[in-house]
């Protein structure tokens, strides 16, 4: 019995050593196949495929390796691998193909411009069953330089009502980069009555751009001025910032409202600072006083910093 037991122990030991050695070899092989070497030295298709084929615990490293390689590659190389992968039945392949396209587009302006040629494939992915894929698709569209093509706006706007909040938020973020049409703007205008402050804030940002593109400054201004009274601080901040970006604001009234926000001691500090910056922007764009019909409604103190109106409580309080 004793020799048999000893032989058993020896066999067990060999088995353990062999297992450890095998695991080490497998790890080395995995590293060689794309998880360890710089991305530029690996074929992108192998790296993308590794995300689905490596042992489960290694997939994050495989994904990182692919993203790194994609962001260092030319867009044409990434497109050659990623666009066919958008038809892959494995959702992680479709997702990381889109992330790779986005990463490459973020890495250089030239790549971002080249991605515009693949917008049709990206739009197809907007209707993917997997919400993560839809989110990545809309993000990849946002990465197109200088912005997503106009014809994609309707498809992106349709995602604003996506049942998955992440996707809807990503769609709104992308719409911030394009000029939406009147039909889509009407739908987004309805979001100003949404119960959620973040939704109203994003709607204000998109509408601000829309009205500016349309040259409808009056509508934009009143939308923003209404936003200054919103109960949500994010909406008020966005409204103040957007008001400062308008090229043709009704100077006196906008300044009066922004000044009221700036001087309101109960207002959030960030909102007050945004109002101060917006006032500076408006004053910078304002025609010289001699060209105005009447005197300026606010008194400014010369100085390179934020405007400082007369106030017993001192200049605008900025937390730094």
């Amino acid at each position, binding site marked *: 019995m004793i020799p048999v037991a000893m032989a058993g122990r020896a066999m067990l030991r060999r088995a353990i050593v062999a297992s450890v050695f095998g695991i080490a070899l497998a790890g080395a092989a995995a590293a060689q196949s794309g998880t360890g070497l710089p991305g530029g030295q690996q074929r992108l298709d192998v790296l993308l495929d590794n995300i689905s084929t490596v042992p489960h615990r290694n997939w994050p490293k495989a994904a990182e390796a692919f993203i790194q390689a994609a962001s260092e590659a030319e867009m044409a190389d990434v497109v050659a691998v990623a666009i066919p992968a958008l038809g892959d039945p494995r959702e992680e392949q479709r997702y990381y193909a889109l992330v790779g396209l986005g990463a490459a587009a973020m890495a250089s302006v030239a790549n971002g411009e080249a991605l515009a040629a693949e917008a049709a494939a990206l739009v197809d992915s907007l209707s993917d069953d997997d919400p993560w894929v839809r989110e990545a698709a809309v*993000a990849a569209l946002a*990465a*197109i330089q200088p912005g997503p093509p106009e014809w994609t706006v309707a498809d992106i706007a349709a995602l604003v009502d996506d049942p998955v909040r992440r996707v809807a938020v990503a769609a709104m973020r*992308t719409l911030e980069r394009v000029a939406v049409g009147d039909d889509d703007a009407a739908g987004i205008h309805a979001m100003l009555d949404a119960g959620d402050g973040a939704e109203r804030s994003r709607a204000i940002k998109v509408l601000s751009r829309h009205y500016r593109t349309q040259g409808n400054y009056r509508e934009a201004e009143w939308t923003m001025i209404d936003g200054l009274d919103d109960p949500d601080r994010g909406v008020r901040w966005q409204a103040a910032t957007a008001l400062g970006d308008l090229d043709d604001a009704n100077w006196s009234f906008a300044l009066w409202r922004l000044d009221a926000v700036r001087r309101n001691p*109960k207002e959030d500090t960030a909102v007050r600072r945004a109002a101060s910056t917006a006032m500076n922007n408006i004053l910078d764009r304002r025609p010289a006083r001699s060209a105005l019909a009447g005197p300026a409604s606010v008194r400014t103190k010369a100085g390179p*910093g934020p405007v400082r109106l007369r106030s017993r409580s001192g200049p605008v309080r900025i937390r730094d």
Partner: protein
Amino acid sequence: MRPLDATQKIGLRRAVILIAGTLVALLLPVATAHAAEPELVNFEEFRGPRTFTGAQPPLTVGSATFSGGQLLTGVFRLRRVNRSTVYGVWHGCAGCSRTITIDFAEPVSDVSFMLMNGRMGKLWFEVSDDTGHTSEFVLNPYFLGGSAATVTLPSSGIRRIVIGEAVRDSPFWQFYVDNLRYSIDEGREYLVSFSAFIPHDNVPGGPTASCLAGKPAPPGLARRGPPPRSNARWLRDSALPGQGWARGNPVFGTGTGSADDGTSRKRVLYFGGDNRAFDPAAPTYRVRQLVTVIPDETEDADGVNDGIKAGSLRNLAEEVRAYAEDAMDDGVLDVADEDGRSNDCRLFHKAHLAETDLMTVDVARTGPKSLEIRLQGTLHNPLVGPAEVLGAIDWDFTLALDASVEPAQWTLNGAHDGFPAYEIYVNGQAVYQHDPGPPPYEFSRHMRKLLPPLDVAVTNESGGLQ
């Protein structure tokens, strides 16, 4: 029925008052049985000079430690409101700071204190605590009524309070505190605090996060306002055709430069960081989630029994501020780079107030005295570049708290992006800290970690709460 005469009416009234008083006396102890005994710090055991002589070392009274100023007794300016011993700061006091900081050895709640203005002006004061709550209020000059007020903080789990004037650009300051009251959280409540922050003062944006300097002026409009403060800052622009203040318009150029004719120039954007180390009481962060939980279901008395103290859940995100690369001419992003004008691709360029609607805190009861807290979220920063939806700060932690043993035990699992720094505290005790590495940060090495997947996994880290 015969009407009561005057004597009988008085007797009846007295009887009613007596019965009501007895009832109140009987019910009051029942109503306050669960309230912790409040602590009072009124400095009456100390005696200080009548005028400032110099800042003292931090003064510890009970669980509270005061720093930044000194003790004084019978201050002349406070004779209308407080003739006893107080703790104060003054601009003429050697070593005194602009703020009074109160640190607590244990988390406290129900904090209130008396704040007194020592200056001649009507001034705004700001009181902030480490749970993210800040309040501002005005006090009259010291010689008028309304120069003192009792400040009450609504937060619980407080470890630090900072008191100061809201406007801190004046060379003068003088104020005092006294009668600090607080209740120590006796271990029944746990303040869970998660923050992500940028340890350095700046982070460069991605290659596609840039602004365009030298945009042409809109037709018919001209820049008004003063020239830039420092000519050195604009020196590089003068080398560009049609650019620079000396030759015309600093914001829009002279009108000869435009995005189309090749004379305008792209500038990399830098984001302002938090410039701090790990600190449970740090006032700055990129994103913060706070929740006070009550593991003991018998104490979870808000009627919901969900483990969350009512009103304690907060998702916070700070403003992201981007600066054009000329702000880095002196090597740092600081207050000197705040020119108060946006979208001009000079110094401060653009801000974004991040929305918190993709941040969630879920608390699930796993036993009579144990909870599981899931802190999860995504924070977009559109200033990163056009694909900020992908390049967002992402985290997903599950923290298990077991108060059935002494000391209470915690276990943490989850994952997060490899950038920026992440920290989790329970009642101020560090549970998890992730350092992204030393600055300077680069897009290729650091910011890229904001892209999927989650880079850092946290598996079964555990410990005990002191």
